């Protein structure tokens, strides 16, 4: 281990459990926990005051001390708030479309994501000037302007941690130019970049012509000790009737490929009518999916369970005979590790970060709906396949550790501090 005193970290995030809408908050919590285990002091900054609890770090909220300010009103924003990091920026731009690049850091709250990120940046400068720290670590484009502002104010090195890029979220055709520009600035100016997978690293290089030398792979992890033990879920009537359950968990949006999953479900249902498909999550494609399921005669095969978290989500994973992650582009894919940790076999898209790290799973190209269906059917049909996937999956998921990921971050800090 490191003998020199550990660097003090000022970390800019966007969400934190239990107020998270997806994997970003979960990953931040995990990483901060890993750093705490190594004894590295983290001050975690969030844009809005929320009631988060963690023994692992000290929280700061960029809206603190601004009582009466307009933007303070968002402090109790719930999960499905319009400021979720996972809703596309395009939806807000009807109201404001003023962002003109760097230099617009003013603290007027605006209801668009880019504006909010800029508002956050304005506060970040003040925070950075007051705080005592050695390195700045920010997560994704939303907190990147804050990280860049802190770097500009103090000259301390900045690590830009990438959980997803704009190309993952919306594909090549609907790119938000402002967000891409912010990300590009991050890749150019950050002292180091952390990418959650080799897959993501390569995409950063390809899409932003970023310097490969700068980019380090820091995988996400799960802490299986925090998962509930696998229980018998014979409670579900469906399972009692001998039905098999195939599960999708994620935002119902382009990036996650729920439409490919539904198309595969259609193929599966033609061959075997004992298989049920459960979607857990919400998103901009929800209505379309419901209508499409009905239109294609799958209404009685598909269940929309809504957005679940905590114990409900764990139970859902455990009830499933197979978890499918059909993402079109998945920088990492934390849900598939959650499924594995719950003892559920997984079928994952090859267009994902986890597919380069997990071997005890089934893999498929997201667009290959026939293969997806064939593998779902095989998993439903052959109990020994599920059994061996489960046994080996459970031990493989233990390879992932937040402490190991935190060690990789410490390595990056030391490298940039020495530079």
């Amino acid at each position, binding site marked *: 281990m490191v003998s020199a005193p550990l660097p003090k970290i000022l970390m800019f995030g966007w969400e934190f459990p239990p107020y998270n809408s997806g994997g970003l908050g979960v990953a931040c919590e995990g990483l901060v926990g890993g750093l705490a285990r190594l004894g590295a002091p983290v001050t975690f900054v969030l844009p809005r005051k929320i009631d988060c609890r963690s023994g692992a770090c000290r929280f700061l909220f960029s809206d603190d001390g601004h009582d009466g300010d307009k933007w303070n009103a968002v402090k109790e924003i719930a999960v499905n708030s319009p400021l979720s990091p996972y809703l596309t920026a395009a939806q807000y731009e009807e109201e404001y479309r003023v962002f003109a690049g760097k230099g617009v850091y003013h603290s007027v709250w605006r209801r668009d994501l880019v504006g909010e990120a800029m508002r956050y940046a304005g506060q970040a400068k003040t925070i950075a000037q007051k705080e005592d720290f050695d390195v700045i670590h920010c997560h994704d484009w939303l907190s990147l302007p804050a990280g860049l502002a802190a770097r500009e104010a103090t000259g301390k090195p900045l690590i830009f941690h990438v959980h997803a890029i704009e190309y993952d979220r919306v594909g090549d055709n609907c790119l938000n130019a402002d967000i891409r520009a912010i990300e590009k600035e991050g890749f150019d100016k950050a002292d180091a970049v952390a990418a959650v997978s080799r897959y993501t690293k390569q995409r950063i290089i390809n899409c932003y012509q970023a310097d490969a030398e700068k980019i380090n792979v820091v995988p996400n992890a799960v802490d299986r000790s925090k998962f509930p033990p696998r229980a018998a879920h014979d409670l579900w009537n469906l399972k009692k009737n001998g039905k098999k359950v195939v599960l999708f968990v994620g935002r119902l949006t382009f990036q996650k490929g729920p439409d490919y999953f539904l198309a595969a479900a259609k193929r599966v249902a033609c*061959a075997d009518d004992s298989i049920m498909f459960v979607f857990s999550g919400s998103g901009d494609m929800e209505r379309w999916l419901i209508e499409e399921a009905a239109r294609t005669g799958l209404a009685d095969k598909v269940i929309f369970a809504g957005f679940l978290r905590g114990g409900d989500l764990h139970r859902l994973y455990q009830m499933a005979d197979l978890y499918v992650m059909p993402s079109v582009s998945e920088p990492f894919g934390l849900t598939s590790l959650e499924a594995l940790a719950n003892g559920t076999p997984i079928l994952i898209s090859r267009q994902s970060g986890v597919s380069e790290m997990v071997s*005890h799973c*089934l893999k498929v190209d997201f667009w290959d709906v026939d293969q997806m*269906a064939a593998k779902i059917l095989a998993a439903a049909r*052959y109990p020994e396949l599920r059994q061996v996937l489960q046994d080996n999956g459970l031990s493989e998921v233990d390879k992932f550790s937040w402490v190991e990921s935190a060690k990789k971050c410490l390595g990056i800090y030391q490298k940039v501090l020495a530079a």
Partner: protein
Amino acid sequence: MPSICLYLHTHQPRRLRKFSVFDIGSHANYFDDHNNRQILERVAKKSYLPTNKMLLGLMRRSKGRFKVSMSITGILLEQLEAEFPEVLKSFKDLVDTGCCELVSETYYHSLASVGSAPEFSRQVQKQNAMMEKLFGYKPKFFRNTELVYNNDIAKEVSKMGFLGMLAEGWDEILGWRSPNFLYKAKDSSLRLLVRNYRLSDDIGFRFSNRDWKEWPLTSEKYTDWVNLLNIDGQSQTLNLFMDYETFGEHQWEETGIFKFFEAFCWRVLENPLNSFTTPTKLAKSLEPAGELDFHRLVSWADTERDLSAWLGNKMQQAALEKIYSLEEKIMATGDELLIDEWRKLQTSDHFYYMCTKWFSDGDVHKYFNPYESPYESFIAFMNVFSDLKMRVDKYSQSKIKVAS
């Protein structure tokens, strides 16, 4: 220096094509003919042909003092016969010298010895018939798939009329005894020759490994090691058992494997007192030094020397169990084609591809594994099995109709 008993084994399976769940019931071709042909062509070019050329040269130039024993699975021979007759001829040329002993095994390189005793016996008979047909040869020695051996298998093999059998010289079984003697099987007259795995693997596995402290292995060094065997006593034989593919495929020609091996053989032959020998010659000229008790199944694979590479997980066990569960019904059809396809599914390679032992360490299990993962391999196998089972079931139904 003891006599050197060199034994080479070769086999190529009929790999399955990626038979999807949706193909079940189509009764389409199970085998990836194109890929199988390509792989065989490559192995023949890189290994079989140059190895046979080397062996033939050694035999001729030593005027018959160089000898070798080998086994070639029926399932490989039939592929050679159909598609690469010139390669088959190069094997025949070796046998015709009279310096080459052919060792029998199961035609399909199967695990029938642990799956079904009657099927085991039938596959050995089929292999013997192939030896007779292609080479005019009656094997006297037997080797089981992957050297899988225990006392019970020895009894079966003895019943089939063999003089002796090859097995792994595994420390756990040998105890203080040396692998360099002729033994006999427990409570049986079957003669046993066991592999000297250290000296065999120095060539078969370690030869080109640059991390090995003995790298590079020269023929001088290796000959010195072999000579050492006589210092502490009277080793009778050095049993070097390895894959044919050691030459040119596991160890590429560029590693110098051919040159090394040829030079080693000439070093041995330099001394007129040294000799190469074959299993039957040894068994006929020596008295067994003792009896070996193989109370558990031992193979020549991996550090465990057990069957875990083929039957270590539940997918492999289920697949094996399913395939032999069809035996009675499928034999009752008397349909040669159906029975042949069923037997091709018994080839151990299919089970090997399903091995999950080292999979997460990135060690994709072995040469020419056509699958991305053991799970894909199990799925393809079970889909094919399901299709085959439908064919068998149809057969029994139509028979019932005819009968009634």
